[in-house]
């Protein structure tokens, strides 16, 4: 079946090696690679600090089935007592070749593929894919206003549901088990609204090239207002339950610290970068949709620790609600998708009476539409950071190459840095504060 002619690969193992298997130089290289610093910088570290005698350390596996790894993340940890000396994340257990699959699907089918990558914020995945395809088609300026505002509404609600899920899992990982129930409960409210709008709780395939799949259902405004009224007081409850609570603060403050310089060097984005005090949010700094027309604050931290990342996400829910209220005021009428025959299927009613409409409908869903050759990279701010989509088109109806820059994949590489020298019990808090979605890490 495979027409592969490439030579047999002979690369080494992906796993963390024991100290006695490594020479001094190899160890230095590995420490450098694991800590994501150059060999020269690794050499500058005091060697006795990184090289306790081999029999005092042990390597243990955390995961891939560990409940606090949020999926199938495997961490190999070298421990000395309770202290983490080295750590290496091993990923790929959920790899299903979605980028390869994306090359086989037409641009209209592509949404079903990308929406399954970050399954906690599927609408943002669809959005970035659709924006990239529209830019390639050259119709990015012609999307109807209602579709743009609907996309913003869904994107912000999705950010809320994603951060609410973070509140739940973060609470669970740190022993605040009642928080888990509360977080899931609030997220469920948002998901219920998604179900009403898109028909599905997750993996919506609702935002499509050219607009969105359907108009908002009647009564949507009351649903959203009800949602906001319900969640606002509950966020204050979270504050009472966790933010001001000494045990909670002790578990998070000063744990998993990263500096701004390190975060930029490691290309970490989203709440991790903002927790270090860098005010970088693509919604404000490289605005897409109509984010330049709404008012919101970019929340930044100052210590770069797990507590900052928790507080940033909690406040981002509030900022998202602020944006959603502005969207409610400004939602225009009109079409919810572009009336360009090339990318938009004919209305259902026309298919019953017009042969041409039927043919058109059939062709657009079997062959898809052709996209002019070229390549484009579009990035938006997903709840986890910068999600980017690089599409290369060769003029046919499927992408020649579809790459998704997954924020979790990059952010997870900061784990060895954040964990180094910390306690094993804090490792759980650190993983949780990065908030990785493994479906997106492995794609």
């Amino acid at each position, binding site marked *: 079946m*495979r027409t592969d002619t490439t030579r047999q*690969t002979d*690369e080494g193992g992906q796993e963390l090696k024991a100290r006695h298997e490594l020479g001094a130089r190899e160890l230095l290289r*590995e420490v450098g690679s694991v800590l994501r610093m*150059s060999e020269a910088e690794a050499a500058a570290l005091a060697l006795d600090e990184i090289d306790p005698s081999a029999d005092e350390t042990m390597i243990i596996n955390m995961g891939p089935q560990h409940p606090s790894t949020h999926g199938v993340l495997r961490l190999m940890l070298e421990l000395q007592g309770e202290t983490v000396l080295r750590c290496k994340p091993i990923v790929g257990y959920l790899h299903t070749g979605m980028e390869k699959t994306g090359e086989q699907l037409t641009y209209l089918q592509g949404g079903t593929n990308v929406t399954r990558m970050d399954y906690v914020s599927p609408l943002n995945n669809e959005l970035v894919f659709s924006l990239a395809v529209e830019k390639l088609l050259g119709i990015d300026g012609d999307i109807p206003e209602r579709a743009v505002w609907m996309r913003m509404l869904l994107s912000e609600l999705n950010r809320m549901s994603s951060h609410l899920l973070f509140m739940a899992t973060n609470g669970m990982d740190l022993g605040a088990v009642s928080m888990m129930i509360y977080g899931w409960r609030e997220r469920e409210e948002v998901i219920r609204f998604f179900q009403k709008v898109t028909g599905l709780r997750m993996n919506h395939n609702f935002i499509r090239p050219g607009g969105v799949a359907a108009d908002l259902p009647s009564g949507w405004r009351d649903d959203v207002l009800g949602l906001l009224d319900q969640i606002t007081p509950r966020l204050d409850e979270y504050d009472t339950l966790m933010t001001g609570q000494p045990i909670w603060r002790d578990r998070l403050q000063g744990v998993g610290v990263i500096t701004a310089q390190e975060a930029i*060097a490691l*290309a970490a984005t989203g709440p991790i970068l903002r927790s270090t005090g860098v005010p*970088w949010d693509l919604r404000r700094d490289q605005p897409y949709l109509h984010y330049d027309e709404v008012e919101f604050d970019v929340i930044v931290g100052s210590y770069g620790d797990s507590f900052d990342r928790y507080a940033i996400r909690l406040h981002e829910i509030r900022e998202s609600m602020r944006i959603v209220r502005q969207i409610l005021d400004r939602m225009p009428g009109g079409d919810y998708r572009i009336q360009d025959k090339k990318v938009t299927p004919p209305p259902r009613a026309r298919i019953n009476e017009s042969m041409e409409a039927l043919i058109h409908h059939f062709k657009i869903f079997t062959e898809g539409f052709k996209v002019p050759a070229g390549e484009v990279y579009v990035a938006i701010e997903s709840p986890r950071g910068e999600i980017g989509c690089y599409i290369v088109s060769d003029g046919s109806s499927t992408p020649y190459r579809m*790459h998704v*820059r997954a924020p979790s994949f990059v952010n997870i590489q900061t784990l060895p840095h954040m964990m180094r020298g910390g306690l094993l019990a804090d490792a759980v808090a650190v993983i949780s504060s990065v908030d990785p979605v493994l479906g997106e890490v492995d794609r």
Partner: protein
Amino acid sequence: MEALHGCITGESRGQATVFPTVAHYLSLVKQLVADGYTMCVDVTAVDYLAHPDRSLPLGVESKRFELVVGLLSIERRQRMRVRLQLDDGESAPSLFDVHPGTEAMEREVFDMFGIEFDGHPDLTRILMPEDWDGHPLRKDYAVGTIPVQFKEARS
């Protein structure tokens, strides 16, 4: 289009792109860091096996693989794309010393395309199992199929 640090530039849909040669690649990225492009957000590759005669700016020699590096300047709020042409079997210098965050992304490119990086500290597979044969995102690597036998169908 004017040259940038001695490299040919181009654009695609309004997005700035620069085409270095393998020899100039590392120094170009270093010079771009000095220009403010301090963050390397993305490293990926494209296998242009089916399109050897694709359109490239004058003076850029088309090769089978193309390494695509996305750089970001936080101060200037700008992006820059670096596209490096590579033959099959040709290795690229690793960006690890300039941008340590590319460690995992270059491993992914190696895993998916078999492009090797000189100076990479830990060039192993990252998504596929270690004993996997071949590199899945190459265009000569077929998509797998599962044979399906329908009931009542004549074989």
